[in-house]
């Protein structure tokens, strides 16, 4: 790794821009992001900046239960995020569906079966410091080139075997 690549890798960790995606959440996790950006928790000390569009983001925070309708939206937005990218799943809902699991329009499966998730933040909702910890962890993965999307790209042919969870057949 030459010097410029090293600088680029460090700057990926030092200024991760995030984009928030609500995939059918009760808004609890999204409300916890707001104090994260306030001076009390001060996410900007780590260079984190919230952006409205996925085209500017490095890290996507996905919160909420996956639903039949949000599945395609998640895939579309994930595709719009430029490489390298990381995904942070907030709370219990993305990993299982939480109390909504088993509802007719809820995909009762893990977010991992839709997009590759790098960091899981447990909690319902997670505390802002847990979210900050998760973002810092994802930023470290971006620096190391160890996010799942980066690893899949370096493997070239190794595209993730995509599961057919919730896809209309």
């Amino acid at each position, binding site marked *: 790794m030459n010097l410029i690549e090293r600088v680029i890798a460090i700057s990926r960790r030092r200024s991760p821009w995030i984009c928030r995606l609500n995939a059918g959440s009760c808004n609890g996790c999204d409300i916890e992001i707001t104090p994260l950006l306030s*001076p*009390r*928790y*001060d996410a900007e*000390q*780590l260079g984190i900046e919230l952006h409205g569009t996925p085209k500017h983001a490095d890290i996507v925070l996905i919160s909420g239960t996956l639903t039949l309708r949000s599945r395609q939206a998640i895939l579309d937005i994930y595709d719009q995020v430029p490489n390298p990218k990381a995904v*942070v*799943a907030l709370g*219990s809902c993305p*990993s*299982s*569906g*939480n*109390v909504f*699991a088993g509802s007719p329009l809820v995909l009762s499966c*893990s977010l*991992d079966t839709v997009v590759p*998730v*790098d*960091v*899981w*933040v*447990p*909690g*319902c909702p*997670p*505390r*802002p*410091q*847990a979210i*900050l*910890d*998760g973002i*810092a*962890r994802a930023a470290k*993965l971006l620096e190391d080139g160890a996010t799942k999307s980066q690893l899949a790209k370096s493997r070239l042919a190794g595209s993730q075997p995509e599961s057919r969870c919730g896809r209309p057949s």
Partner: protein
Amino acid sequence: MAMLKTILGNLLRPSRTRAPADMPVVPPTYRGALTHDAGRCTACGTCAFVCAPKAIHFTQDPGISVSWHFFIGQCSFCGLCEQNCPTRAIHLRADVPGSTNSAGGDGLRLESVIHLQPCTRCGAAHVPLPAATMDALWAAGADEAERGYCPDCRRWAASARLRTAFTPDGAVAEGGRHDR
């Protein structure tokens, strides 16, 4: 002057105000990750019953053990399991569960094994009562041998005591077995 002190203090302080480890304190009643004490659990299944998102379930290894399983990725941290646990085996710690890199392992799933014990009378495998409950039940002068009994034998012993109380002549054949 006080303002100048504050300004000077802020100038000398590093720009990073709060590292992730140095965050506002968590309230003492915060409901964080679950802990399970297998020594207190009687495997009654109340926690699995009251859990709305079905984050807790039990599996059995017949005759050997009962396992308590918990998946943090399905938990709403409502605390109903802690509230309803009759033996206080479940406790929600007041610290923030950390983020993990995979949903499969890494502390997201907990397993706690409760080993069954053979009954000292009939030999049937059963979940032993927690030590504190035993001390409360057999505190004063009760038959110490009953500590190792299975629920059926405990019931038999209680009814045997009742019968000998009514028929003091020893109508009960000692060592009689209950129907299993």
